[in-house]
C-alpha cells in the first residue's frame, strides 16, 4: 500500500472528519494522448445540428415520402429537439440528423439553433435561466 498523499494547498494532514481520507485526484498529464475514437460516418453532408436544436415542421409530408420523413414531420408539428426526435423514433442521433438534414434541404422543416456557451457567456440568458429555475 502506498501512504496517503499530503493534501495540496498547504493544508495540514491529520484528523479527517469522515475517518479515512478520501482518495486524492492527480492532475491529468497533458501529454497523455486521447484515445482514438471517432463518430461513425462522415459529417460532411449533415447540417450542423445539435442535440438541442429545435426542429419545426413547415409543411406536410407528401404521400410518397419515406416513413422516416413522415414520422419526423409528424413529431415536429410543434418545436421538438433533435434529441427528443431520436428518443421517440428510437434512432441514433446521427441517423436523425441525416433525416432532418434532408428535410431542411427540401424546406419542409425549420431549425432553431440552440444558444451555446461562448467565450463570454450571455448574462441576460443566465439570468433568464435562473428566473425560470426559481419557479420550479
Amino acid at each position, binding site marked *: 500500500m502506498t501512504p496517503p498523499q499530503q493534501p495540496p494547498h498547504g493544508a495540514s494532514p491529520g484528523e479527517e472528519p469522515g475517518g479515512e481520507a478520501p482518495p486524492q485526484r492527480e492532475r491529468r498529464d497533458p501529454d497523455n494522448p486521447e484515445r482514438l475514437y471517432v463518430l461513425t460516418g462522415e459529417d460532411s453532408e449533415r447540417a450542423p445540428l445539435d442535440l438541442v436544436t429545435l426542429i419545426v415542421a413547415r409543411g406536410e409530408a407528401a404521400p410518397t415520402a419515406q416513413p422516416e420523413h413522415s414520422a419526423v414531420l409528424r413529431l415536429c408539428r410543434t418545436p421538438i429537439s433533435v434529441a427528443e426526435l431520436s428518443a421517440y*423514433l428510437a434512432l441514433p442521433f446521427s441517423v436523425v440528423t441525416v433525416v432532418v438534414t434532408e428535410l431542411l434541404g427540401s424546406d419542409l422543416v425549420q431549425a432553431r439553433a440552440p444558444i451555446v456557451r461562448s467565450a463570454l457567456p450571455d448574462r441576460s440568458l443566465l439570468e433568464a435561466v435562473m428566473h425560470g429555475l426559481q419557479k420550479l
Partner: protein
Amino acid sequence: MDFKSSDTITGPRSEDVLPHTAAAAVKVVVVGGFGVGKTTMVGSVSEIRPLTTEETMTQAGIGVDDDYGSESKTATTVAMDFGRISISEELVLYLFGTPGQERFWFLWNGLFEGALGAVVLIDTRRLEVSFDVIGRLEERGVPFVVAVNEFPDAPDHGIETLRRALDLEPAVPIMPCDARRRESSRDVLMTLMRYLHSLTATRV
C-alpha cells in the same frame, strides 16, 4: 436500418409538447461515475419523463496487443438519458445525464462544447470515478460545479476535504445534494448558473 413503422411511434404526450413560441434551447450535462444518481437527478427536475437518445461510436484500436498496424474497429452504442425544463415561453433547458463508458462522452459531437456548463455528481464511496471527467472538463474549459450526492452509508469527509481531494480550483462550487429531490437538484442547477454568471462578471 431498423426503423419503427410510423404508425407505432409514440410521440410526446400532449402535455409534453413545447409551445410554438419555443425559440431556442440551452443544455447542461450531468456527469459522474456509474450509479451516482445522474439519471435520478435528471428525472427529479425534468418536466417530462426522462427520455433516452443514443449514438453509435466506432472505436479504432491503436497498436494494441500484437496487432500492430491492423485497423480493428468495434462499434459501441452509447445511450444518454435526458430531461427538459421549460424556462419561459421561448427558452428551454435540456439536461443530459451521461452514462458509464466515460471515454465516449467527449466524442459525442457538441455535447460538451455547446453546453452552458456541467454538473459533476459524486458519490464519496467512489470518489476516484470522477477524477478523469473533472480533468477532461478542465482541459476543455467547460465550467462545472460539483454536487455530492449524499448516500446514507457514504463517508462524510466534509466539503473542504473533498475540495482538496478533487483538487478543485478555489472558485469552483462544491455542494451537498440529494439527487432524488427536485428542490435539491434545482439548487445545484441554480448554483451552476450563479457560478457561470460570476464568470461573466470577472471577465468584463
